């Protein structure tokens, strides 16, 4: 189980693969579910050229760990990885990565889906978009649809 904050761009597939290699759980897990949230260059009908992701460092670390722990209590997970970007983010950059490993599929799928919803509602991160008409803090998260 690992969660961390990344101040620089990361390759999600590389990160997942690395984590999986190091876990030594090969042939124990039958299911891996992942979610990657990445930056779009378009929001609310407006082009977005860059984004700054601010956070409350001590509290985010604490909340990512807390979310992992809660997920493990709810589902029989073998492993879990959460990475979240902060700082200056460019279009197409991954912002958040969640990966869950379990013996059978429902645990990994349900935990992954739950983790991204909880993270979006509870972890103290804030996005500021740079648009043609200036910078703008996002006021609330989308409902996912």
């Amino acid at each position, binding site marked *: 189980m690992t969660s961390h904050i990344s101040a620089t761009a990361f390759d999600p597939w590389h990160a997942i693969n690395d984590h999986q290699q190091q876990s030594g759980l090969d042939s124990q897990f039958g299911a891996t579910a992942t979610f990657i949230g990445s930056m779009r260059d378009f929001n609310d009908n407006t082009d977005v050229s860059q984004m700054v992701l601010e956070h409350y460092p001590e509290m985010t670390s604490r909340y990512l760990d807390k979310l992992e722990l809660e997920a493990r209590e709810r589902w029989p997970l073998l492993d879990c990885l959460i990475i979240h970007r902060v700082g200056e983010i460019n279009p197409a950059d991954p912002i958040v990565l969640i990966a869950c490993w379990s013996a059978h599929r429902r645990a990994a799928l349900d935990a992954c889906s739950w983790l991204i919803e909880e993270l979006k509602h509870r972890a*103290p991160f*804030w996005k500021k978009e740079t648009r043609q008409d200036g910078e703008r803090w996002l006021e609330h998260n989308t409902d996912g649809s």
Partner: protein
Amino acid sequence: MSIQVKFFASLRDKIGISDTTVDSATTAGEAWDIATDKAERPVNVLVAINLDYAQFDSPINDGDEVAFFPPVTGG
């Protein structure tokens, strides 16, 4: 008594303070009033005491860290 008070994101920009210390306050709401000179509280502002979500009327103690911030938008 010393309470550390932090503001984040759009709320920090609005209040104009990132980090300050107040000498006496018994609740998070009192810490807000002292730190901001009784600025109006935005309706959706969130409160954390020592890195856990709390309420404006939650009690605070010497050495606590109180943070105020807008709805989170990460992920």
